[in-house]
């Protein structure tokens, strides 16, 4: 039981789970870790295109579970890092093709060989979500600073608590400092106060996410991107390093206050 299994989920769709999974996976591999990124969004496969590996798929997760291939054969090695792998979702099946115990079994099979297994969860609160969180040692909830995303995050956090999993860690994605300054976007402090969970990173809204996704090159590979830097910081926190909070709005004391808030929430 070596690998840590981390599931990235959200409640609401489109908040950045797949983007986060791909980027954290690449960043962990860049830090020298061996990583498997698993797409658990059966029927809505996407992690492959975000990672730029769509042309290499032969077998998928469901093929492996249904024993049409060995799990190894469904693992695609990344073009850039040879310690990074993708297990793609099946595209023509649905979430009922697999069960929570299948997911646990698959993870247990590869745990000894890797440092991290990242699972990209589908949106929603049903079977697909249950499958994705079943093997998780840690669950990261992604939200946006916006009413429906925060509400759905709260719902999912409640369901995770009911499963008696460890407390979730939160990524606030698509944070827009100028909207916050104008008073038209929830601050990270607001979101943390509402959800009462621990933060693992704030990722700014950044056009380079779209551009890099167009190329199939996760944005962490672009060293000029603020979002890329934020995903890198998250990955460092995952391996236990202390990384200062990024200054996203130029107001010097903002992140000082934020980290104080987080520290008091943790104590």
């Amino acid at each position: 039981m070596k690998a840590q299994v981390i599931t990235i989920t959200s409640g609401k769709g489109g908040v950045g789970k797949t983007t986060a999974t791909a980027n954290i996976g690449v960043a962990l591999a860049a830090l020298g870790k061996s990583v498997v990124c698993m797409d658990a969004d059966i029927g809505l496969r996407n992690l492959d295109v975000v990672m730029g590996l769509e042309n290499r798929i032969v077998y998928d997760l469901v093929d492996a579970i249904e024993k049409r291939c060995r799990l190894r054969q469904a693992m695609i090695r990344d073009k850039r890092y040879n310690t990074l792998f993708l297990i793609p979702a099946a595209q023509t099946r649905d979430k009922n093709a697999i069960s929570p115990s299948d997911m646990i079994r698959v993870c247990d099979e590869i745990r000894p060989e890797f440092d991290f297994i990242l699972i990209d969860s589908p949106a929603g609160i049903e079977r697909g979500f249950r499958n994705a969180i079943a093997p998780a040692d840690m669950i990261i909830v992604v939200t946006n600073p916006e009413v429906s995303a925060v509400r759905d995050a709260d719902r999912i956090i409640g369901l995770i608590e009911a499963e008696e999993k460890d407390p979730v860690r939160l990524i606030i994605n698509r944070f827009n400092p100028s909207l916050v300054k104008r008073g038209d976007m929830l601050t990270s402090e607001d979101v943390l106060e509402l959800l009462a969970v621990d933060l693992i990173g704030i990722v700014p809204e950044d056009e380079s996410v779209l551009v890099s996704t167009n190329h199939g090159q996760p944005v962490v590979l672009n060293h000029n991107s603020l979002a890329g830097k934020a995903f890198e910081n998250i990955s460092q926190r995952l391996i236990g390093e202390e990384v200062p909070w990024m200054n996203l709005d130029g107001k010097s004391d903002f992140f000082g206050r934020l980290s104080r808030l987080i520290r008091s929430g943790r104590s």
Partner: protein
Amino acid sequence: MSTIFERLLLREKKSATTAKERLKLVLVHDRMDLTSSALDSLKDELIAVISKYVSIDTDAVEINVNQEGREQTLIAIIPLQASRKRGVR
């Protein structure tokens, strides 16, 4: 003239503040799995049950939800009315 304008602007609530206030309420109800109208009937029934045993000041009954982290506690404040028996002078 600009001062009146400024005052109006200042009084106008920022949309993020409205969002936060609305979310706070929505989350309380989501977490309890209780709508505000269900909470109202909970209050009515609670008053009815307690009134069978003691006399209470029904208008002053308050039901609040207290939050600590993600934990919520339902707190009922039920002012008792001076007992009729003891009230005899």
